């Protein structure tokens, strides 16, 4: 079974530029998460999708971050414009359903460096 795929693996941009990350979840997984993991910290949830609907985006900085999952499969996360403090690893995860105790599977992440 293929895992969660993310691209690119690494990205370096200048502040004020824009950037987009892509995630392909495990086939059949209805729930998709985007996390931000700053060096030395735990993953922080940015947004949760159930199929193509947003369940929780309370911690997404909506003035600069946006995410979509138009067909309920792939998802993209965009930052525009980027700030230095956005340097982090962006993780995508998927779950089969939003059942209480089902495991979430994680991709390897995209490491973003803003200079």
């Amino acid at each position, binding site marked *: 079974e293929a895992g969660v795929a993310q691209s690119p693996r690494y990205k370096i941009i200048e502040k004020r530029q824009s950037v987009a990350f892509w995630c392909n979840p495990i086939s059949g997984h209805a729930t998709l998460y985007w996390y931000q993991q700053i060096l*030395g*910290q*735990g*993953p922080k*949830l940015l947004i*949760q999708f159930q199929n193509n609907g947003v369940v929780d985006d309370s911690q997404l900085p909506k003035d600069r971050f946006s995410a979509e999952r138009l067909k309920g499969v792939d998802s993209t996360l965009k930052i525009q414009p980027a700030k230095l403090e956005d340097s982090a690893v962006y993780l995508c995860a998927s779950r089969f359903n939003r059942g209480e105790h089902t*495991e*979430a*599977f*994680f991709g390897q992440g995209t490491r973003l460096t803003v200079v």
Partner: protein
Amino acid sequence: AQSVTQLDSHVSVSEGTPVLLRCNYSSSYSPSLFWYVQHPNKGLQLLLKYTSAATLVKGINGFEAEFKKSETSFHLTKPSAHMSDAAEYFCGNFNKFYFGSGTKLNVKP
């Protein structure tokens, strides 16, 4: 609101000695908790989870955790550390899939 606190940011043990990684939770009701592991340059992987079926939970790679309501704790243990256990470990809860700040485990030869 539910949250977890990992009490140690770094833990260092010698190979073959026991491992203890501490996690406390705060919850107004019985939580559902997990431990994930993150090896360098690899994705997060579920170690084990507590879902109120049994207080002692066994996971992969010889790890286990005990849910103690009286202490609001869910500490991760392993009797004997291996070099391959060196990684970062995250405690969390299934409510909004929230993660703690992490504990980096170093295993010395």
